[in-house]
């Protein structure tokens, strides 16, 4: 598999975005809100039933763990 060149990919992505957004200039202006319509902004506060196996499943996915703790190196990401 060819190694990716992030700098080149970033430049290409920016060029595509610049081209697309320039094309949008001919779309004109809109009035009113431009967000999504929704009935509520928050999730309902209903309590779900506790899942006793969730912790085990979650820990199985952890790259590094120590008993009940997930280990991550500070600032490594």
């Amino acid at each position, binding site marked *: 598999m060819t190694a990716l060149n992030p700098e080149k*990919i970033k430049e290409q992505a920016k060029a595509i975005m610049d081209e697309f957004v320039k*094309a*949008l200039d001919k*779309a004109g202006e809109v009035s009113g809100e431009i967000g999504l319509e929704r009935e509520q902004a928050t999730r309902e506060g209903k309590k779900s039933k506790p899942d006793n196996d969730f912790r085990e499943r979650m820990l199985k996915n952890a790259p590094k763990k120590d008993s009940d703790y997930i280990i991550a190196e500070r600032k490594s*990401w």
Partner: protein
Amino acid sequence: MVAAYSTEQKLHLLRKGGLSAAENVKGFLDVIRKKNRQINAILHVNNNAVAEAKAIDKKIKSGKAGKIAGLAVAVKSNISVTGLPVTCASKTLENYYGTFDADAIARIKAEDGIIIGMANMDEFACGSSGESSAFGPTDNPAAPGRIPGGTSSGSAASVAAGFCDLALGSDTGGSIRNPASHCGVVGLKPSYGRVSRYGLVDMTMSFDQIGPLSMDTHGAALLLEAISGKSGNDATTMSKDVPKYSQLLKNATKGLRIGMSAEFEEMCSDKRIYKLIEDLAGKFSAATKSSIKKIKLPHVDLAIQAYYPIVYVEFFSGTRKFDGRKYGKKIEDSCGEEVLRRILGGREISRAEHHGTYYRKALKARKLIAEGFEKAFKEVDVIISPTTPMLPHKLGTKITDPRVMYAYDAYTIPANLAGSCAGVVNAGKIEGIPVGLQIMAPAFKEELLLQAMAEIEKR
């Protein structure tokens, strides 16, 4: 690939004891064993599927089974299923197993559907060909050697290859409809807010919807009925009632006002596709005493340009959780080119120095396009168009410019921008390759959409 039974026939057999759920699942597992190596539609088989089917057989015998009891469902690998790999077809999550059931999965299980396996897809739902999976491309069972489309490539191919009765996909800009068209199956993108996105790995949260794929409209209607409805887990779901879509299919579709857009005709690179769609629309109109009207859809030629800046920004935001701490690997270190392009592009255009210019301009254009559709739906009941402007290319074709791939989405993106529902049924073939006809209906008019799809399916 012709299914041995229609969905309705299969359900009848299961309910009456002519076929057990266990036999049904074993049959599909056998076909997967024989053909999946070539097609690569299924990434992981549910090893517990037969045991689950046997439990459902007991429920069927007792007369207390759900509406899709015994049917086998393939699930796109970006939808969480407890205990099965939810890899998004990426090395980033290659060792990640679902810790909970997505709402759509919980609802399938509540209606006694059986998850047969996790389907291949374009990596993190970024693409439109089915070639960018980290676990190899999927072949098109209906046009071998050609792309199946994407990003629900494995879901569509699984249905077409006879690996399952039904499949779940997700659609952000056409990712159910595009592969449904290329593979010659039925696919439907619900209205935004119809189906809960809880448990779906976001591609673009303001566009994504989970939806059904099937060999026939009845199957799609049944699966949509099972998974739809308000959820306390997803604040973007709407509290509108869920009609019994599968039963409403029997209602006659007559006297529809069918819209066809001059702008869409101009956008079709392969004129043979447009002619095929136009001819079928004409037959449908004549058979149902409907009328076809030429409509204007202003700015729809800017759909791709409005869509991708929103995608880049929201995808960048949605992927910040893949930092390799709690699960998986750091996405930037383990993903493919298109995923990286969207992350780096999204990061770049959402920098503070740009003051939200890119995203805001795209949102404005989105609103203009959505308003155009709202106005059009006052003049017509449904809008018919091709699904893609060109035939699927051969697998392995070298395409270096991403805009060539983005162009596949020209007809499908508008429904996502508008939040409306849209479905695809097979319209015939060109050069032996399936071509899908797309129908769009206003938001939360899935019953009208499905009735029209069922009627066109008969032609």
